[in-house]
Structure formats: C-alpha cells, structure tokens
C-alpha cells in the first residue's frame, strides 16, 4: 500500500511480512510509510506480496506474470488462470503451497544488506 492510496481510502488493511515492536518503527520515523491511525487492521502474512517482490524478504517470480499475460489473451485462458490461482485456493497458505517449496526457496532473500544506523538523539 502506498501513502497516496491511504489518503483516498476510508478503511486500510496492511499485510506485513513481520510485526515488530513499536520502538523498532519509531527508531527511524523517516521510514514510516503509513502511520498507524490510517490503518484499520494489520494482517501478518509472510509472502503476502508473492509473486511480486518484497525488499529484503522475497525476489519477484517472473514466470507467473508471463503465464498470466499468455493466458489472459482469451476468456477461456483467463478463466483457467482464475480457477487455478484464485478460486480453487482456500487461503494464502494454499497459494504458497501451490507455488511449491522449491519456488519459495528460490525466491527467498537470504543475504543481508542492512542500512547504516542513524543517530536520532535529540
């Protein structure tokens, strides 16, 4: 969710890779993209953005986008895609299982490149 989309929404739901203590968020206010008062509910859902990427957690999986482009050229193809990837999957866990552990392993970011610490002492 982008800040501009929170400005136009009355109800905002945020899906997160991780929920961290409040003081982690407050340690660098410049990085707070959406302040809490704009958020109605938070859902902890690792892999929630897949097959798109999440910086530091998941790389993009390119194949599903190509598949969607190919299938969505015809109504039948789109219906088949919708069945396989939306209608027949009960929840996010089922979606991730359908992607397969080997794919998830390939997409998971394991290297670390932390930003430099900043001193926010007043």
């Amino acid at each position, binding site marked *: 969710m*982008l*800040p*501009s989309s929170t400005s136009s929404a009355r109800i905002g739901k945020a899906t997160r890779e991780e929920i961290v203590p409040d003081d982690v968020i407050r340690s660098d206010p410049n990085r707070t993209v959406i302040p809490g008062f704009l958020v109605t509910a938070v859902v902890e859902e690792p892999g929630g953005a897949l097959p798109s*990427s999440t*910086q530091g957690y998941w*790389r*993009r999986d*390119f194949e599903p986008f190509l598949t969607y482009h190919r299938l969505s050229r015809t109504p039948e193809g789109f219906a088949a895609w919708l069945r396989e990837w939306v209608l027949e999957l009960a929840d996010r866990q089922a979606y991730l299982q359908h992607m397969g552990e080997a794919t998830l392993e390939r997409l998971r*970011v394991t290297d670390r*490149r932390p930003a430099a610490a900043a001193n926010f002492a007043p």
Partner: protein
Amino acid sequence: MTPAYTRRELMVVAAAREIRDHEVVFVGMRLPLLGFGLAKATHAPNAVGLFENGVIRDRPAEAFIYTMGDPPNIAGALACLGLIDVMSLLQQGRVDVGFIGGAEIDPLGNLNTTRTSGSGSLVRLPGSGGAGDIASLAGRTVLIMEHEPRRFRERVDYITSPGHFPGRRRGGPATLITTLGVFDLSTGRVGATSLHPGVTAQQVRAATGFPITIDDQVAATTAPSADELAYIRGADPQGFWTGDTMKPR
C-alpha cells in the same frame, strides 16, 4: 543469415544514444529501462534517472528488473521519493528527456494510449500512466513504438500524450524509435533519420498510415557494438525485454 542481435536490442541501443551525458532522464518501462542502463555504462556515465514510482538512480539497477519497484532498482538508489515528488521535478523543468510509448501516433507526434476504434470495434487501452505529464513537461521526448500501419494514423482517436501544437512552450517529441527505424519528430513532421539494417523505404512507407519523408540516401541505424550487446545481455539475460518475439519480416 542469423542476425547477431535482435531488433529490440537495436532499439535499446538507439534509445541509449538519445541520452546525453549529465542529463536528467525520465525513464519509462520496458526498453528504456535497459537503454538508460546502457547509456550510463557507455557514453553518459553522469546521467540521472527518475522513475515515476519515486525512485531516483544514478547507477543502473544491480540485476534484471521487471518493474521499476523491483528490489534491484531500490538497492543502491540515490533516493526513493514518491510519485508526487518526481512528477513535481518534471513540472519544475528539471527533466531533460523523457521516454514514452504509445499504441497510436499521428504526424505531429500525438500519442494515443487511451482508446481506439481503429480496428472497427472500440478497444480500451491502458491509459496515460505518467505519459501525458512526461509528454507535456519534459525538455524533449523520445517515443518508442511498434511500426505497424494500424498504429501510424493520420489522426489518432484520442490524444493521451500531446505532440507538437501551436503555443507549446516547452518540450515536445524529438525522436521516434520504431521496430523499423529512427525518425526525427522535432520539426513537427516525421522524417527518417535512419532505417534499421535490412529495412527498405518501401517497407516503412507501407507500414506508415501517413506521408513520411525518407531521403534516398538515408543512413542505416548503427548496429550495436560488442560492448553494447554484452551490457544488454548481462542486464536482460533471458531476453525478457529484448528477445525478438516479433514475426520475421
């Protein structure tokens, strides 16, 4: 004979050559993503790229990217602002050159990406994105298109991104790069600067739905160098953007 490069690779090289050193570039999706990286790696090391999601880069992305929001385009960026911020820089006149594509074009460089009934029934196209702003506010624009008669029309159904018009105070289409050649749009008419190797003037006229100036002595587009191809293939190893999916001529 098997060509040593694809037409899309040639188009990336042509796009890169439109970027001068030290320029601020509003980078579009697809081929310009690679063209910007290639220009940085070759003749324009000091160019700065703005992406409409707010990313500002002065180095090419570290790995292949599918969208401007992919992690390799964020890592090592100069700044990650927001859409409003980079569009404001565009409005301020800080952008030298912007890249845009279109579904349809007319002789004044007006682009349509909104809707068309050119093929008989009304087709809804993706819309402007940031293209209308780029076409209006960048110092000059470079247009990238497939060269087909149904796309090159005397009059477009809808002007999404304005071309040349009386009273324009800034910018306007400078160059058009197509699957057949490179064309000068800066005078408000379409004239061939170069045709891609193997392309004839007759082919171009047949694929253009309006009169077009092609000199008898028109040059051939300079083929990519080995270094340029090495860069493109490193940045797009699977040929995702640059593999030639177009039908053979």
